[in-house]
């Protein structure tokens, strides 16, 4: 297992390096002076563009630019965002915790709702309850995030006044958590989609587990339906959910652009999207770097949890 983990970590470094390299190269495949124009605007003259290119090394060969960037990463320097006038690392440091809070809470909430819902659907499968919840899942899955968010704001914030119209505006994690009312609507908005998807996975995973031989054995040995359901079937049915969770980590880190926009909660999603649309190359490569790390980490965590959840699984 240890050897497996070491090999996976080394592979992950190569993957992350490859992603960063690819993003760097792709973000430089634009017309000359594009980064300068994006930053300086239409009033920039040739002298100012030249100075900008020199300051940010865009006048050097692409290989040299990447080498300078890589050296920076190794020293913890991800460069500076020209548009936002902050270092990429400080931007990520300020936005990432906010994103982790919002998306993390919504994911946990979604799991707490989706798993019981999935089980309920299996227990009551092919009944009105099952059909209703299936339909609700499809509606939740199909509902555009911006529409759900705006409707929630309209009904529960502006019309009824039950909740604030925007997510917590504090700059720190503790400040955000100190305003739980303001988290309700954005969390629900984000969680609906996850609940829809996870509950469907849980339902099918439980149904598959309940057809296994060990379930028949457990019943034959006199186990109560409750014991069979929770002690035997659930644990095995959760294994695919664990894998899904691991794969969700990049999404958690990457943020939720729509929810962030609708609820005025600038996080990693908005940061990355703006970096791409505004040709803020250092920021784009920096956020991609973080997303790449989250992806490989998520996969690694999923694999480790898989081993813990299923003793039959061994990595050689």
């Amino acid at each position, binding site marked *: 297992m240890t050897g497996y983990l070491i090999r996976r970590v080394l592979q992950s470094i190569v993957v992350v390096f490859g992603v960063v390299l690819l993003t760097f190269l792709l973000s430089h495949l634009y017309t000359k002076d594009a980064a300068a124009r994006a930053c300086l605007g239409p009033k920039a003259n040739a002298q100012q563009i030249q100075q900008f290119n020199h300051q940010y090394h865009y006048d050097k060969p692409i290989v040299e630019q990447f080498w300078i960037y890589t050296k920076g990463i190794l020293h913890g320097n991800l460069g500076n965002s020209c548009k936002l006038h902050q270092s990429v690392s400080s931007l990520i440091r300020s936005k990432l915790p906010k994103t982790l809070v919002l998306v993390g809470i919504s994911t946990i909430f979604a799991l707490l709702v989706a798993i019981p819902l999935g089980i309920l659907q299996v227990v009551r499968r092919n009944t009105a309850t099952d059909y209703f919840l299936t339909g609700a899942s499809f509606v939740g899955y199909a509902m555009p995030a911006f529409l759900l968010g705006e409707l929630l704001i309209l009904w529960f914030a502006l019309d009824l006044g039950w909740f604030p*119209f925007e997510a917590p505006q504090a700059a720190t994690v503790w400040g955000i958590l100190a305003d*739980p009312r303001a988290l309700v609507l954005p969390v629900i908005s984000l969680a609906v989609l996850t609940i829809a998807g996870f509950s469907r996975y849980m339902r099918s995973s439980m149904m598959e587990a309940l057809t296994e031989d060990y379930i028949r054995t457990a019943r034959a040995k006199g186990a109560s339906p409750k014991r069979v359901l929770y002690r035997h079937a659930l644990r095995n049915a959760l294994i695919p959910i664990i894998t899904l969770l691991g794969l969700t980590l990049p999404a958690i880190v990457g943020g939720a652009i729509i929810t962030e926009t609708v609820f005025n909660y600038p996080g990693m999603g908005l940061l990355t999207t703006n970096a791409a649309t505004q040709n803020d190359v250092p920021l784009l490569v920096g956020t991609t770097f973080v997303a790449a790390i989250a992806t490989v980490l998520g996969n690694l965590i999923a694999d480790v949890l898989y081993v813990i959840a299923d003793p039959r699984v061994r990595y050689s």
Partner: protein
Amino acid sequence: MQSFGSGRRGTRGLVVLAAAAIVVLTLAACGGSSSGSGTNGTTSSAPAQQGGTAYLAEGTQAAPNYIFPFTPLQYFSTTNFQQFMNLMYRPLYWFGQGATPNLNPSLSLASTPQYTNGGKTATLTMKPYKWSNGETVTAQDVIFWMNMLKVEKLNWAGYAAGTIPDDLADVTASGNKLTFHLNTSANSNWYTYNELSQITPMPMAWDVTKAGQKPQLCGTASFSEVTVSSKTTSKGTTVTPVSAAAKSCAAVYKFLASEANKLSSYDSNPLWQVVDGPFKLTHFDTTGNVTMVPNKTYSGPVKPKLAKFVELPFTADSAEFNALAAGKVDVGTLPASDITANATTTGTCGLKPGANNPRLSANYNVYAGSTWQINYFPFNVNSTGNGGNSGKLLKQLYFRQAFQTLVDQPTLIQKVFKGYGVGTYGPVPVCPTNNFAAQELKLGNPYAYNPSKAKSILTAHGWSVKPGGTSVCSDANKCGVPAGTKLNFALQYVGGSPTEDQLMQAQKSSWAQAGIHVNLTTGTFDTVLSAAVPCSGGSSCQWEYENWGGGWIFAPDYYPSGEDLFQTGASSNSGSYSDPTMDRLIKGTTVGNSDLGAYSVYGAKQLPVVWQPIQIGATEINKKLQGVLPLNALTNINPENWYFTK
């Protein structure tokens, strides 16, 4: 197989578990603190109240991010200057008097400059303003700025080769009187509005290279003591400090710029607390939340009545609208998508907003005011597109006239901008009402929409006009291009905006009426800007029309004299337009004694670019907040004038 439908007791637990999760969130919601009120006032009929907190919505994703007034171009924005720095550090001259773009003597730190010696000498007298640390705003504080400009001009947003400080022989101070000695004569309006407008006096407290130091040489030296060596090569221009005073300026700039890079320290750094404006900063975070309180030592004519002025950041128009609907902001912009009733136009510049959005009408009034800008998109007179004929065609005035005559600005304003817009007729804005544009242009568009006229122009110049199709040149002698040339052009514009899409598609249909076929494509902002550059032929010079959607905003070059836009070889003359008469007229407005009238008319009629309508924002103002009007044409805000009524 045994069904689990009989396990009802087991399922009860599942329902409870799922519900518990929902209950947890609901309980959390009930236990949280309530948000503060965005307004603070009573009925509007009672007298002004002292105090209160006014909330301003910042532009979407446009939070301030620079505090040092000596700003590089990338941070030169309305958000940073007009809505942030200018509230704390007053520029030497304030522009925007009421709704006009004129110099505002009452808010300026110096008297209106007097020009003598044939326009080669400008003299002004400093008013008795105070810095918040007790020192006086002196002529030397202006020279401090000028000294730094001499050394660090390449880091100044408004610098262009040949302009301030390059055009100065010397700047001298005698008591509170300053004298600018120019190398050559300058038009007084141009020099005041475009050159002196760039100056912000700096306190001696900033003349340091580390915290707690005494003033260094940069702020105390005379302008002539600062000597530099400039060198221009193919790789660009470098400015090297030579004298001790110049080296001091370089060191001071480096220190101040590095302090300005520490955004999280803006509200705590003592440097930035030395202000001469009506407000000082008490809170700033990197998300864009700004809180200011009145500067009790402000020397200006109107002292703030508010207790606090707060700026709030927003991720999107919809988020800002929600804040307005919740009453969280006092002054904000009504997103175009939420305008529910068209504005109406009276005369050339009169704009009457329509009924307010029903969600906002109880608490807000809506207003609209023109901004000091023109909107246009350039064409490339050297284009090698269309078999090498595009450039030749775009050089023909008759073609440009036909093209412009098919742009129906009034209809575009009504249908696409919902009435919130004004037309651009030439290089000098006709709105807001001003004394710069010729009266002739204020009476109307010289190229008003007229498809029949457009077709006649083309027909008269040898074109076989095919409405809905593609017109073809049938007489080369009249067309100016070979027979058989088709009117087929490529126009790239910035995508991602439904408004811009509508605008371009509507015009494409208009142009098609005369058989001018325009192929529309979209690109990112920087792609379009990168494409719209001067070129002189060859395969890389094929662009024909490029539209970045914003035209030109006149700041800090408030005098729209055109030397940056339409003069031959000008830095922003993207399409390489060149006309000796235009050059002569522009020169008259910068170094001669001409006003802008002749230039504005000539530019309007010669069509160096394609004029486009300007979209105007609708501003929502809390009914209990007074003093915000009139809206400043240069987007300056004066919260010191704001007050709540009961």
